[in-house]
């Protein structure tokens, strides 16, 4: 039996660079004027490419999908350079301030639009959505489960290893107190951690090739949604920056630093 084609959609997010200062704006939203492709989203992309490369006889396409402001095109473009076959960007002013609930509504429609439009030569494709373990700035890790619930897909989160078999994906994951080997059938949403692989860097050839790859942009209306479908359920009331930590007393060991630390701890009543 010939294996059904597989459409892997990797979700990639354009996020404020964690190496720089990140802040909230006056509207109580994270400032997204500058950004980078989330590091955590390089792992699902790499995982998708490895799955594709390991199955040369199977028709597998890797699409990158992002939702974000106009600047988010740098995230999908980088995904194309790293190796995605095509890319999709959902941008709409009505998505500004989206919470997890609204984001999963929009991404569900976007995933269905992407899978609906794709044509495969070797039959009806199955689809697999791969995501990072969490978004770098939201850190909730709740999107994969919400998206799966909406798509009616199976979900497995925090994968540390993936192996595609003919009709299922075998995943190693750690829940809370145990490590599990889990088999999941398509359609599925799987989130992967930074333990799953070592993401590749795009080389010059890949960067040049990426310029010819298709990038499709759509708005909410293009995926059949209106503003009232994506109104957030949660509202941020206040944001307060914590005073940044400052350096305290730094000493150079002169043979008594161990004692000095204990004295410091005693003084601070930490013993």
């Amino acid at each position: 039996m010939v294996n059904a084609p597989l459409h892997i959609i990797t979700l990639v997010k354009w996020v404020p660079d964690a190496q720089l200062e990140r802040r909230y704006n006056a509207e109580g939203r994270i400032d997204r004027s500058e950004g980078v492709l989330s590091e955590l989203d390089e792992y699902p992309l790499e995982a998708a490419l490895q799955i594709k490369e390991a199955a040369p006889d199977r028709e597998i396409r890797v699409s990158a999908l992002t939702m974000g402001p106009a600047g988010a095109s740098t995230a999908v473009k980088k995904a194309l350079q790293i190796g995605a076959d095509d890319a999709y960007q959902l941008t709409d002013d009505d998505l500004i301030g989206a919470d997890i609930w609204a984001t999963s509504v929009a991404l569900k429609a976007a995933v269905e639009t992407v899978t609906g439009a794709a044509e495969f030569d070797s039959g009806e494709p199955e689809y697999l959505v791969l995501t990072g373990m969490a978004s770098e700035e939201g850190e909730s890790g709740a999107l994969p489960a919400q998206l799966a619930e909406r798509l009616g897909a199976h979900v497995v989160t925090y994968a540390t290893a993936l192996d595609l078999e003919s009709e299922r994906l075998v995943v190693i994951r750690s829940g809370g107190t145990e490590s599990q080997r889990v088999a999941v059938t398509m359609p599925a949403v799987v989130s992967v951690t930074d333990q799953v692989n070592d993401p590749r860097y795009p080389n010059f050839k890949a960067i040049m090739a990426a310029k010819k790859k298709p990038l499709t942009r759509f708005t909410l209306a293009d995926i059949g949604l209106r503003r009232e479908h994506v109104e957030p359920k949660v509202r941020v009331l206040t944001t307060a920056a914590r005073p940044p930590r400052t350096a305290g007393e730094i000493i150079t060991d002169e043979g008594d630093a161990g004692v000095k630390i204990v004295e410091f701890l005693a003084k601070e009543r930490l013993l």
Partner: protein
Amino acid sequence: MSNVLVFFDELGEALTPAQKELIAQAAALGEVRIAVAAYDGDPTPVLAVNGVQEVYLPEVSLPAPEVAIVDLLETSVAESGAVVVLGSSTADANDALARLAVRLDTGLISGAASISADLVVTKSELAGSYTTTSQLVSAATPAQPLVVTFKPNNIDPQRVDTLVTDGEQPEVNVLPVRPSVGGVEIEERTAMEVSARPALAEARVVVAGGRGTDGDFTPLEELADELGAGLGASRAATDAGWIEHAAQVGQTGVTVSPQLYISAGISGAVHQRAGMQTAGTIVAINKDEDAQVFEIADFGVVGDLHEVIPQMIEELRRRKG
């Protein structure tokens, strides 16, 4: 008084500190009802806590990632009429509650620190650099309960002990929920080794080591035991296999917020800082005076950890006499 539903994805022979804390958070809001997904034997004696009225169980234990857990939660919400659902922000609980929020068409706030009587949630954002408050848009006229997942270690453990006291056995309500068939199958389960030391995320003191340990964690283990501390590590140390991955502190590891964090042989990369910079006091030992970790240390020693740590241990023992 309003009803609060608490979700435990698994329940062992005793409540964990994080579970007690959740009960404490819930009890401040109203009458507590608890839905338990995975359990052995009869879980009710463990839940004989003042303020806990009722326990919802599936017909058979449902270990995560079993999707029927979401059915259990949905039914429990209907049975309890809860105005808010609380759970932990660990992977399995977060997944189930995230799906519940979709089913109920309601808002989810994950990784919270606390919740007020009027259901305003406080949480730490952007790796601890901000504190935000948020609530349901429909807070004035909520049609559905708010769903909130919590990080542990937000209430002082002594205070938790005064809030969560032994009580009568709660009423048990077995709901008609059974495991699902197909889709996601668990083929193998391996219990992770449980360290005898305090759990990292809940420990009041954490001793963490990085590449600078050169692979020998023995001195750090001894120091941790002297201080009753949990043992953590940087990703460089866990990636090298010097210590289990569960010990990784940072953005993609465990987030800790102990009273005291002792960092030894760790450079203090932004990924590491994301998991520990809200600690009360940070002590850093690093032989490089330019190490980033010194920017956030309350007390720093430029020196060799192989000399400083043994001396600390010796001094601590001397003081104990």
